[in-house]
């Protein structure tokens, strides 16, 4: 009887196991499924015109994306969405050490969408060692920019000086970001 019960439990767990794994395609074909976008439309996808925004930095000074991208000294803008977590730190430190020195004429924004206030964002920036690091921390208290860019932790967006989105995906080893930045006009 005990064995039957155990076998039933096994079957139930196995069924749950199978149900779980069918939700995600663990071995996709490798085909590029990114939707094609129409140039000139506004949106967060690669090839679209970047949605403009204005966010305050940790001192409350407003920063507007379109104004930053058009600065004569900037070839483009990198936006990194951070929640000050270990993954965020490892990726931001990799960007700081490996990417920023190679591409100094790019503006780097860290968008804090969790702290909810200038003070909170300032404290997080200090605690995590990014004060004066080359990142300008912007405070997205209402998560409006997070939603505009369909972003989450680790999302990295590159926008060129014409305001076109060149990259919008997770930060990985930094190679893709460097490739994109290297190709900016």
């Amino acid at each position: 009887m005990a064995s039957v019960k155990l076998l039933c439990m096994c079957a139930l767990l196995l069924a749950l196991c199978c149900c779980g794994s069918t939700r995600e395609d663990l071995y996709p074909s490798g085909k590029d499924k990114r939707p094609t976008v129409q140039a000139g439309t506004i949106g967060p996808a690669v090839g679209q015109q970047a949605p403009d925004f204005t966010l305050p930095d940790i001192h409350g000074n407003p920063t507007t994306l379109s104004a930053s991208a058009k600065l004569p000294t900037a070839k483009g803008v990198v936006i990194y969405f951070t929640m000050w977590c270990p993954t965020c730190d490892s990726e931001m430190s990799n960007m700081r050490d490996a990417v920023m020195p190679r591409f100094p004429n790019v503006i780097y924004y860290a968008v804090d969408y969790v702290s909810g206030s200038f003070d909170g964002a300032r404290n997080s920036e200090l605690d995590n060692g990014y004060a004066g690091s080359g990142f300008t921390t912007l405070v997205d208290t209402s998560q409006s920019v997070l939603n505009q860019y369909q972003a989450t932790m680790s999302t990295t967006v590159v926008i060129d000086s014409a305001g076109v989105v060149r990259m919008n995906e997770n930060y990985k080893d930094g190679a893709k970001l460097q490739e994109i930045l290297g190709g900016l006009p």
Partner: protein
Amino acid sequence: MAIRLSKIVLAAALLLGAALFFSSESRAGSCCGGGGASALVLPKFSQGLVDLSFDSEKYHGFWNQDGKYTPDAPGSDLGQYRLNIGIAKRIAPRWQASMSMPYIWNINKYSGLSSRTDGLGDTAINLWYETYDRPRSVMSVSDWEDLLPTITIGTSLTVPTGISAYDNVQSSFDVTGRGFYRVDANALVDKTIHPVTISLLLSYGMYLERPVDREYGKYVQPYNKKLGDRMLGTLALGYISYLESRKVLTYTVSFSALQEAEGQINGEHDPTTGFRKESVAGTIALSSVDSDWTYKISWSHAIKEDGWGRNFPTTDITTLGVSYGFR
């Protein structure tokens, strides 16, 4: 004497279970996704086991890339809660199989954002082989053979049944699994000389490479990803005591060191990945000689000081569990 020895065997098995219990590692909650299932090991003469436990894992900052302890964002309250169900079955005199699956709730509150999500975690399927015919728990040492430990070897398969970053999700808060298959080789060395038990668990795991074509629901240029190899060592020391009520109490303290090497993107090392974590834990388990029920409570603590980890959250895990063994 026979009854007393069987009590010791039972207690030793509990300790052994406790040691493995701490092999459950999580990388979850606020950012990193995934709740791992723990492995179950049957006592030598047990035919089966059903285990139910509840973990409450609270986040208290993290170790950064340089191993420096860094607090979480001010005003944050981050937690992951797991209801784990596990079964184990003896399939031959020396062979046993087990399966554990967690259901996970991620409940995270920051000053400017709150999130509450849930879903299945990753499932662990384990196969164990006992290299011994009978338990080697002894009351005292009178012969060199009394010093011989029991060795159990096994393999585990982690099945990515959880919700991963490569699934159709919107946010990192939704993540309950890592999205990769993993195969582990395990060895458990255990010795009880009444009333003390010591056990050592060693584990080496390799993730299987997989293609990725989307991240948090957004399709991206396809690439291949592989997480780094994983090593785990847990050393547990236990003390067995007997109560007047014919119940057995076991107290266990353990130290675990977990390390994952750098992963790979398209065959190239990814320097942003890889982590290390060291933690201590304590467990109290209560069981009765007359009953097949065991109750346990444990607390696992990551030391919030520099150097005790790298690129990993520091968490405290409180666990309440109950198991029923079939003879």
